[in-house]
């Protein structure tokens, strides 16, 4: 990479940092797999639990209550309680129970509960078991976490059921939000708007984007200019890739559209790759708020690009090829072009501003409406 390009990318990281900050306003994370539409039966065999603080008749009743809370936010699937008491893994039956081990392996000493997830072809959920660590004392109560080593089974169930749905920890995916799905158990005893938005992104109906992206030929034309600059001015050498130029532009644009449509990195990646492999729909997670349109940080764009390469290699069986624009350059400059376009610049201005930024390292202002 030339010093000039490195300087330009370095300066752009400042923009990425700001963009990254704006992404933290909201942002559940998903695991990339979902249940088919219908009923997801969880067989509850949590023995005991009389005299629980919140009046629940049993531990099973408390967990059933957590399932009902999630159900209020789900459209395409619903949890239902089953009563099978068998305990088996890898049997396509969803079981919830207490145990002192995790299928014979010890629990980590700090682990309250675990959810195992079974998926077919990594995308379709076929089983989820939730195992509560019997080494702990359990109750069911609202409010702050109590002292005395007594844990609220309902809020832990809310969290584990979120994993069973396909939600990840937002705080471990670059987000800073109030969420029951955060990795750290706290005094929050209910679902938050972010948890619900996450569930609805997987099992809700989705929304049509309220943002108009440029027609496909224009980002493609920009990319041709970018290729020429890398080849003729930067004299960049070829870098290996499985994604051709058109695929790079189309799918980076779709990833950006999902992100602008309030999808987290993981959800945007899943939604975009589903379009490639299974003709998934093009709905986004939520309407974009008015004002300046924030873009994802470049590290997340690069993670998406890596996944896109893997999909082209493994699912589409594309051969290795090469491009003078490496993956990082493609991500940074295509997203930068789109950022200008969505912030009132026409194709010519956006192209000019990005190419000039590469040449000089100076980040031009966006355009005014």
């Amino acid at each position: 990479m030339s010093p000039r390009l490195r300087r330009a990318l370095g300066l752009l990281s400042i923009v990425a940092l700001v963009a990254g900050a704006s992404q933290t306003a909201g942002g559940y994370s998903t695991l990339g797999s979902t249940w088919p539409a219908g009923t997801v039966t969880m067989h509850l065999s949590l023995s005991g639990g009389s005299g629980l603080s919140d009046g629940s008749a049993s531990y099973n009743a408390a967990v059933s209550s957590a399932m009902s809370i999630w159900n209020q936010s789900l459209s395409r699937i619903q949890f239902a309680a089953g009563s099978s008491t068998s305990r088996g893994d890898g049997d396509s039956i969803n079981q919830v129970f207490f145990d002192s081990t995790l299928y014979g392996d010890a629990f980590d000493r700090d682990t309250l509960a675990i959810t195992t997830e079974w998926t077919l072809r990594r995308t379709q959920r076929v089983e989820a078991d939730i195992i509560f660590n019997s080494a702990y004392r359990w109750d069911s109560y609202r409010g702050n976490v109590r002292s005395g080593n007594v844990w609220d089974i309902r809020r832990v169930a809310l969290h584990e059921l979120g994993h069973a749905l396909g939600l990840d920890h937002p705080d471990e995916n670059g987000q800073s939000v109030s969420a029951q799905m955060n990795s750290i158990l706290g005094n929050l005893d209910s679902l938050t708007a972010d948890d619900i938005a996450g569930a609805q992104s997987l099992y809700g109906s989705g929304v049509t984007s309220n943002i108009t992206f440029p027609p496909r030929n224009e980002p493609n034309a920009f990319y041709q200019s970018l290729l020429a600059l890398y080849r003729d001015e930067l004299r960049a050498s070829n870098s290996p890739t499985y994604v051709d130029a058109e695929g790079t532009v189309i799918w980076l644009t779709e990833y950006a559209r999902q992100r602008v449509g309030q999808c987290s990195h993981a959800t945007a990646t899943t939604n975009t790759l589903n379009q490639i492999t299974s003709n998934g729909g093009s709905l986004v997670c939520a309407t974009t708020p008015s004002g300046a349109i924030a873009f994802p940080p470049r590290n997340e764009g690069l993670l998406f690009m890596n996944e896109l390469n893997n999909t082209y290699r493994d699912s589409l069986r594309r051969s290795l090829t090469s491009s003078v624009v490496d993956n990082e350059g493609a991500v940074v400059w295509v997203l930068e072009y789109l950022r200008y376009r969505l912030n009132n610049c026409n194709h010519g201005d956006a192209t000019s501003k990005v190419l000039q930024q590469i040449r000089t390292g100076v980040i031009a202002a966006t355009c005014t409406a």
Partner: protein
Amino acid sequence: MQRVSWLALLCSLLMTGVARSTTVIPPTFESLVSTANTIFVGEVMDVRSDWVNTRQGRAIKTRVTFKVEDVWKGTSGTVTQLEFLGGTVGEMTMKVHGMPEFHEGQRSVLFVSPNVRTASPLVGFWHGRLRIERDLNGVDRVRTHDGRSLSTPTELGNNRPSYMLSLTPMRLSDFASAVRGRVRGERAR
């Protein structure tokens, strides 16, 4: 999966009565170093998943073979294996939420628990794995298990939002010095 730190809970209750937040934190740098039986830098040579019979049916386990580049605490051969619950066999994937996943060629710093018969053999389940990446200048740098930039060891366990972190992770060599210094300090006590 949610985890709880007893020390954090105790501290939060003592400091603020019934605390609103921070009842749980991931392991700190000090805790990772002191709890680990072995700390090494390894490159993944091989990842193999197989069905195993358990007392409650069957499960998938993944054996990860590492080429050991450097050992910072304890002892290890030049090649070592760790076994994790979960993995993919054919079209079926079993995943334990939060379990670290490894791919051939990846380099990591690994804090191995004294009890390797747990679902994850690493200290703090997934927290005992730090990622190594080589920057454009060929310098090895360190990121947390979930890819966050690590600029100082004390950021481990802080769980700070990513936008507050430096974009440039610390050098692996600096992190090694910090770990080794901590190990020497433990021995001195």
